[in-house]
């Protein structure tokens, strides 16, 4: 059995990539992601990892290298943060449309302007419609496990996967975790095989101009047009939820960890108040939940959302329907509207007869401290029986911890 070690979240990610036997790594430095690629280049240079390291001149090119390598049938990885993710945005859409199973760690950080190197989720949220699968880890062990599972998911459904984890909170803190045994990883994650891999023996022209309508190929077989290909991406992305659950079950048989791949509920069974959050903040809420139950007799629970895209709407609706209050805390928003996750959850609940009271909180942007005490106070205050707000006030995000 492997032994637990204490390392940073970024090193945990690099170890997972090493164990996954990624063969082409391309990356560009950006805080707080940089230690991931530093570690990978160190592992490769020291001969402890057999891969190509390409020190590109930009994030746009980092994803381009991954696109080239994956199109040729080789497992590729990159990592980035913040503006780096946005700089490769065009390539993200390309990789998804090209159905390439690239895995990327995004060490979540606020977006400029103004510059911030600290954590929030706006980078990932801004790319939610790129066609990537987006998962969020909430501790170091999940960074390792999710990254390994992400390679298998990406290669099974042919959709790229973004493994998100919080900058500094997870990337730079040292926590114990158990690196999986290399031989078992090999059994869990078979070598990448891509049937459309670029090859002179079987020449194919990939990502050519595709017309609005379906067209016959030279054999007279009808081939879908752009819209049909995009429809397939959407449909197969929806199916990825089940595939992710299957992968998690298999991961459990190999490594004994897992069981909550899509949502991770804590004390939610009888909860009247359910908090929904992504990333490390969901773990922070466990303390809040315990205190609300113990000190105030409020039956609270926290539901960590591990998979944001594809959005597990039906699963969330089932989990949240019986609650009186659902409180969505998030570190990003759709400016001029509301929290992106809040909007998704509201939309998921709409078709169902029982709709809990919804609350939206924006917290921790650009690394603004998130005191557990203020999470506790806001949650407690918001579910007080005498505090019923009219829709015009309840359906707008409340900003926590402003220092205006």
């Amino acid at each position, binding site marked *: 059995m492997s032994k637990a070690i204490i390392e940073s979240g970024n090193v945990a990610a690099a170890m997972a990539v090493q164990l996954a036997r990624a063969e082409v790594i391309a990356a560009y430095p950006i805080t707080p992601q940089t230690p991931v690629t530093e570690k990978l280049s160190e592992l490769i240079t020291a001969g402890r990892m057999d891969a190509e390291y390409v020190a590109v001149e930009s994030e746009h090119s980092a994803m381009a290298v991954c696109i*080239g390598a994956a199109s040729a*049938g080789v497992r590729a990885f990159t990592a980035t943060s913040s503006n780096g993710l946005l700089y490769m945005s065009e390539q993200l859409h390309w990789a998804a449309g090209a159905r390439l199973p690239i895995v990327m760690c995004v060490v979540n950080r606020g977006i400029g302007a103004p510059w911030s190197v600290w954590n929030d989720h706006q980078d990932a949220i801004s790319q939610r419609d790129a066609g990537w699968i987006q998962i969020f880890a909430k501790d170091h062990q999940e960074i390792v496990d999710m990254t390994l599972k992400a390679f298998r998911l990406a290669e099974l459904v042919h959709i790229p996967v973004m493994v998100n984890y919080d900058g500094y909170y997870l990337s730079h803190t040292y926590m114990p975790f158990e690196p999986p045994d290399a031989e078992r990883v090999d059994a869990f994650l078979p070598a990448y095989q891509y049937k459309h891999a670029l090859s002179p023996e079987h020449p194919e022209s990939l990502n050519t*101009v595709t017309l609005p309508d379906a067209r016959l190929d030279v054999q007279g077989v009808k081939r879908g047009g752009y819209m049909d290909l995009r429809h397939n991406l959407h449909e197969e992305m929806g199916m990825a939820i089940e595939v992710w659950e299957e992968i998690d079950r298999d991961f459990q048989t190999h490594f004994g960890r897992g069981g909550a791949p899509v949502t991770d509920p804590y004390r939610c069974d009888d909860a009247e108040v359910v908090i929904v959050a992504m990333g490390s903040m969901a773990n922070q809420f466990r303390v809040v939940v315990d205190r609300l139950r113990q000190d105030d007799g409020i039956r609270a629970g926290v539901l960590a959302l591990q998979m944001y895209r594809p959005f597990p709407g039906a699963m969330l609706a089932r989990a949240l329907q019986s609650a009186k209050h659902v409180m969505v805390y998030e570190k990003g928003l759709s400016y001029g509207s509301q929290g992106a996750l809040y909007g998704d959850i509201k939309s998921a609940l709409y078709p169902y007869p029982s709709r809990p009271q919804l609350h939206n909180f924006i917290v921790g942007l650009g690394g603004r401290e998130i005191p557990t005490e203020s999470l506790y106070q806001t949650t407690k205050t918001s579910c007080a029986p005498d505090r019923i707000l009219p829709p015009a006030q309840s359906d707008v995000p409340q900003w926590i911890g402003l220092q205006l």
Partner: protein
Amino acid sequence: MKMAAKTTVLNLTEEEFVHPGNRACSGCGLSILYRIGLKALGRDCIFVVPPSCLTVMQGLFPIAATQMPVLNGTFASTAAIATGVKAAMRRLGRPTQVVAWAGDGGTSDIGIQALSGALERGEDIIYICYDNEAYMNTGVQRSGTTPQGSLTTTTPFSGKSEVGKNLPAIIAAHNPAYLATCSASYPLDFHDKLLKAKQIKGLKYLHVQTPCPPGWGIEEHMTVALGRAAVETGLFDLYEIEDGRMQLTGQSLQQLGNTGLRPVREYLEMQVRFKAFSDEQVAALQAQVDQRWSGYRDRFK
């Protein structure tokens, strides 16, 4: 490295790598280059192509005019995608050539950062820039290499006021393994420079002047005559740079002994795009060419 025996129409391979019929305009200089270039490159190649006339020429899904494996990618990232494909080939233990083939906009403007990175890293790829001196695929807008005075849809009436980028010189400053300039009007010279490039490790850059009938305002049958005129007037020079040493080649080398090259006016007057050129501009351009060629004569004699 010595150039092998020259390829002629008699010993050029008869094997075709492009299907008959494609979407190029009639008289397209690129279609000459593509057909002959593939004969030099052979089957063991993978192409990386950004948005350009070549994207359209190679065929629209699900039909391909090319017989080669092609990875179409985003505009700005051609050299980086090629880097990824080449890295994959190394991982797979395959000697397959990776050939990036982009236009002048895709190379000198939006793609220059990725290309500069690949040059600095010394990536083992062939990069071909077919330079038709404007954004032709989108309908003739000015690019970084559009020559001064040229009419385009974004430099109407009086032509482009700025001097075009000397892209080969920018590439040469990166000290590539091999650099060559070529012309669509001398396809066998292009062919043989590709044969040479295939033997060299590192980044091989071929810059190919490519006349474009609709963009330049010439009759379809004038493509070859135009490209030749560019070389024979001394406006576009054929050369190679290896180990930092520049050497004129082909027609440019042959005319080194001629003190009287064809006047640039002949080349300019063949094209609608230079209709706004004034007599003063012609004289200034002629003076530039004369000075450059005078330098060549001192340097290479």
